[in-house]
């Protein structure tokens, strides 16, 4: 078992063991270590510490070496996806104050350039005396950007102390993992489940398998799980849902830990999927990015998995987190009553990135402690287990990405010259979430609209369907009656 308190850490320099497998090519730990130390040298030669370093995410060994090097030099890792619209990339670069940007793809097109960009394939191969910095708990380890309701991405800065707190929970998760284990990393790097999917293999000195960035991930994920006998995987349930028609053909006896996360975990799907992974411990990992990766966890029993409304129980808080459920008046509810789950503890971030308005909305003082409002409606049963029931606002998850429907409405309305728009979430035929845009009046040119939206929002936020209605119904307060639109456009069609 590695020392869980060492974060950041220096990766192993083992000449024998595989560290990474990318597109069926293996890279050993000594190779990763060498790339890591060269990147450390690049950072140190610039005398950078406590600075934001951008990293253009790509499926390459240098991406992973760079993340470890940014941390080991006590800097802040900011992932940037090259497929994002350039407005969004510009906003991330300027909000995070990125001066140095690493990339390992051939070229990267940016609107506003940061002060310096460095192609990692072209860097000096000078190596450093390897001593990791020991950043303060308050120093920021990474900043992730999520959908913001005002149309601008919202930065979630997670500190070294937050990550250390998260890692202190690992022993009680009961993982018996070693260098023989093989770990799946299926996540987009802007998604915080990628952080644990990267930390776990390198802490246990096992091998990390990446999933190539192509449009159809589920067949590739299945191939990796099967062909390479992956033993530890964190996956979003929507990927598993795509495999459902083929469950009869799937047998993964080498899977030891199957962790479902990033979305509500459907009970029926889990029961069926368990048969495909007969020797695996199944876990549900719950938590918003603001409470560092996951903070409420559940190891499922072999049979009779507790669930509410078809969603598997999320379990109990980690030892670093206090959970309370409150009502609309910010009073704690009685056990068994539903309300909003609020979170306190060292895993919870201090504040959003330069966004006092959002801080006021998302944090509250409760019994002289600062709590983060998850926005998730939950209840706790008589055994102390928490159950997730749904969202209290208009946030939805598409392929695990957190999306504010109001952000989609904002961009649509701007593109449609202030026509009114309601964005709704519905389920597609595999049971995964999709977005439907309801527009008041006619859409003059749908192709142009979609082209416009692609310049403003990432692909997973583009509605999969557009509908027109002549005029929106209003409620008693004169506001758009979303419930009635939801009922007529979605519920009545089922």
């Amino acid at each position, binding site marked *: 078992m590695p020392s869980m308190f060492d974060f950041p850490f220096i990766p192993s320099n083992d000449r024998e063991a595989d560290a990474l497998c990318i597109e069926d090519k293996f890279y050993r730990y000594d190779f990763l270590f060498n790339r890591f130390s060269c990147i450390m040298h690049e950072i140190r030669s610039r005398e950078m510490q406590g600075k934001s370093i951008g990293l253009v995410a790509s499926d390459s060994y240098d991406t992973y070496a760079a993340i470890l090097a940014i941390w080991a030099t006590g800097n802040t890792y900011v992932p940037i996806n090259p497929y994002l619209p350039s407005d969004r990339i510009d906003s991330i670069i300027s909000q995070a104050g990125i001066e140095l940007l690493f990339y390992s793809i051939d070229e990267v097109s940016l609107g506003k350039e940061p002060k310096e960009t460095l192609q990692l394939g072209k860097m000096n191969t000078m190596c450093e005396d390897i001593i990791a910095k020991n950043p303060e708990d308050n120093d920021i380890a990474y900043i992730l950007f999520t959908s913001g309701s005002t149309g601008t991405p919202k930065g979630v800065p997670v500190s070294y102390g937050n990550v250390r707190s998260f890692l202190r929970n690992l022993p009680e998760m009961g993982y018996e993992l070693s260098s023989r284990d093989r770990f799946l990393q299926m996540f987009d790097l802007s998604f915080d489940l990628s952080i644990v999917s990267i930390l776990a293999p390198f802490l246990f000195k096992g091998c990390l398998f990446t999933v190539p960035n192509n*449009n159809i991930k*589920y*067949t590739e994920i299945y191939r990796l799980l099967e062909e390479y006998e992956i033993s530890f995987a964190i996956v979003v349930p929507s990927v598993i849902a795509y495999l459902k028609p083929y469950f009869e053909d799937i047998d993964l006896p080498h899977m030891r830990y199957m962790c479902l996360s990033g979305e509500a975990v459907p009970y029926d799907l889990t029961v069926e999927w368990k048969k495909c992974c007969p020797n695996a411990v199944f876990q549900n990992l719950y938590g918003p990015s603001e409470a560092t990766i996951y903070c409420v966890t559940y190891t499922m029993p072999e049979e009779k998995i507790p669930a509410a409304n078809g969603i598997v129980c999320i379990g109990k808080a980690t030892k670093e987190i206090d959970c309370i459920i409150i009502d609309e008046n910010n009073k704690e509810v009685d056990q068994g009553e539903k309300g909003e789950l609020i979170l306190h503890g060292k895993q919870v971030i201090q504040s959003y990135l330069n966004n006092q308005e959002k801080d006021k909305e998302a944090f509250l003082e409760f019994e002289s402690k600062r709590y983060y409002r998850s926005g998730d409606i939950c209840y706790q049963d008589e055994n102390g287990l928490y159950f997730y029931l749904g969202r209290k606002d208009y946030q939805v998850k598409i392929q695990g990405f957190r999306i504010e429907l109001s952000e989609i409405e904002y961009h649509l309305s701007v593109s449609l010259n202030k026509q009114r728009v309601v964005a709704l979430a519905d389920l597609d035929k*595999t049971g995964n979430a999709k977005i439907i845009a309801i527009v008041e009046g006619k859409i003059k040119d749908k192709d142009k609209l979609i082209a416009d939206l692609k310049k403003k929002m990432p692909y997973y936020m583009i509605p999969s369907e557009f509908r027109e209605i002549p005029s929106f119904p209003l409620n008693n307060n004169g506001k758009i009656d979303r419930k009635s639109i939801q009922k007529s456009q979605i519920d009545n069609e089922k």
Partner: protein
Amino acid sequence: MEDIIIKTRDIFREIFNDSSLEITREMTANDVDKWDSLTHLTMIAKTEAVFGIKFKLKELVKMKNVGDMLDKIQEKL
């Protein structure tokens, strides 16, 4: 094979909502705008129905482009 190509092209045109879409043997999901996990699943189901065949998951995994798919359809007919 000609018949398989025309029928497959028509399936692609319907699923990806593009009446002028032409398919080539080298074409992959990265070449077609709306070809993602969901449309892939729909396209496979439609192909299975049109040709009266059934793909195994291991066969889907091995199909790297449209050419692989056309060959697999021909093999199964």
